[in-house]
């Protein structure tokens, strides 16, 4: 198995930062409209303020923009992770003289489910933002001049809270989509190999990567199933309510922020698949690289990794300089 963990973390971080930027745009874009409306609407109730046509339209537009941006970032992250997986699987299967078919560019079933959940989160966010802002607006009472200033502050904070709640859901969807993109591409390539080699049996093993895995992943660690099968959804600790599986367990992630991977194994068709392997210890920490790992990276992956840190350094420097100038 190739260790693509560092590349995946880079992709995940890039998608996270794109999602965060979209959430920031939502907060500042709608926040500007809201501040103007709050200043002008000192004699209105929260409900009257939020039902103003311009303000409602601004929220819908800002949310639509944020949703479109998040969707693009998540889809790109899923595909980028898939490309990384495919590169590794191609290398693994090249030794068998097998070239997997071209990568499918359509959304996988899992990604489609993630994006549908994302659409639902944005739809719910309209009400959540309005209710949170309304409560903050109505909570401030007093003389007109004091009220206007206080309401601008409290509604801005309320908007920030509601956007953060949405951001948590979107980020969870994004990180899951990236890691599942890797799993989906692995599954697709090995399934193609399995389909053309009827005399072989291809199995997949759940591999924990974290040095401090959760109880659910630890229970799955070492489990082997046939390539098209799901892992056991019921494995996990029994002393707490069972963590539900999102959609299916054809492979990681088991949960948000899951760093587990699949290891594919090829054997004779009659071979017994082990039910459970518990002797292997969890793998090494993933967030480190060796110089040899760097030299082994394909040129495009090295460029992507280098570009991420070099561009991040420049952007962060600019942001810090601006923050100091502003302070």
């Amino acid at each position, binding site marked *: 198995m190739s260790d693509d963990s560092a590349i995946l973390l880079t992709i995940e971080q890039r998608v996270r930062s794109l999602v965060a930027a979209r959430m920031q745009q939502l907060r500042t874009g709608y926040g500007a409209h809201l501040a103007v409306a709050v200043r002008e609407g000192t004699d209105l109730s929260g409900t009257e303020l939020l039902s103003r046509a311009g303000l409602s339209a601004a929220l819908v537009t800002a949310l639509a923009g944020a949703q479109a941006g998040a969707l693009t970032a998540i889809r790109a992250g899923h595909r980028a992770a898939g490309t990384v997986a495919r590169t590794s699987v191609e290398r693994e299967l090249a030794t068998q003289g097998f070239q997997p078919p071209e990568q499918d560019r359509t959304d996988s079933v899992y990604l489609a489910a993630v994006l549908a959940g994302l659409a639902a989160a944005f739809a719910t966010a309209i009400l959540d933002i309005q209710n949170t802002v309304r409560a903050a607006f109505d909570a401030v009472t007093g003389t007109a001049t004091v009220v206007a200033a206080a309401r601008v502050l409290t509604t801005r904070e309320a908007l920030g809270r509601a956007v953060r709640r949405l951001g948590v859901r979107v980020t969870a969807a994004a990180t899951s989509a990236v890691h599942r993109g890797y799993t989906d591409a692995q599954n697709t390539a090995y399934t193609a190999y399995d389909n053309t080699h009827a005399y072989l049996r291809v199995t997949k093993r759940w591999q924990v990567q974290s040095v401090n895995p959760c109880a659910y992943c630890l229970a799955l660690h070492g489990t082997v199933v046939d390539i098209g099968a799901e892992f056991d959804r019921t494995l996990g600790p029994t002393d707490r309510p069972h963590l539900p599986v999102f959609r299916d367990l054809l492979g990681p992630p088991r949960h948000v922020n899951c760093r587990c991977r699949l290891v594919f194994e090829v054997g004779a068709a009659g071979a017994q698949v082990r039910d459970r392997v518990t002797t292997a210890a969890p793998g090494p920490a993933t*967030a480190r*690289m060796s*110089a040899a790992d760097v030299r082994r990276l394909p040129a495009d992956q090295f460029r992507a990794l280098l570009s991420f*840190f070099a561009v*991040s350094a420049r952007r962060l420097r600019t942001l810090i300089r601006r923050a100091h100038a502003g302070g």
Partner: protein
Amino acid sequence: MADPPTVVRFRGDGPDALAAAIAAVLRHARDTKDDFTFGPLRLDELERDGLQIAGPDLAGVMQVLATIGGLAHIDM
């Protein structure tokens, strides 16, 4: 001059310095045959834990990191 320590740690005065340091380490790793490991690779973990470099061939990478502004070297 004494041999460099086996493990060295750097703290940055901001995430920009740490990101620049990782970029420099990546370039150095690609350009040399030095044997070392580095990490973590996430910016939030870098800020929390600092950048750690470990291995027998640290002289070259230490020289590179000395040119990054805002990066402070802490021996472990």
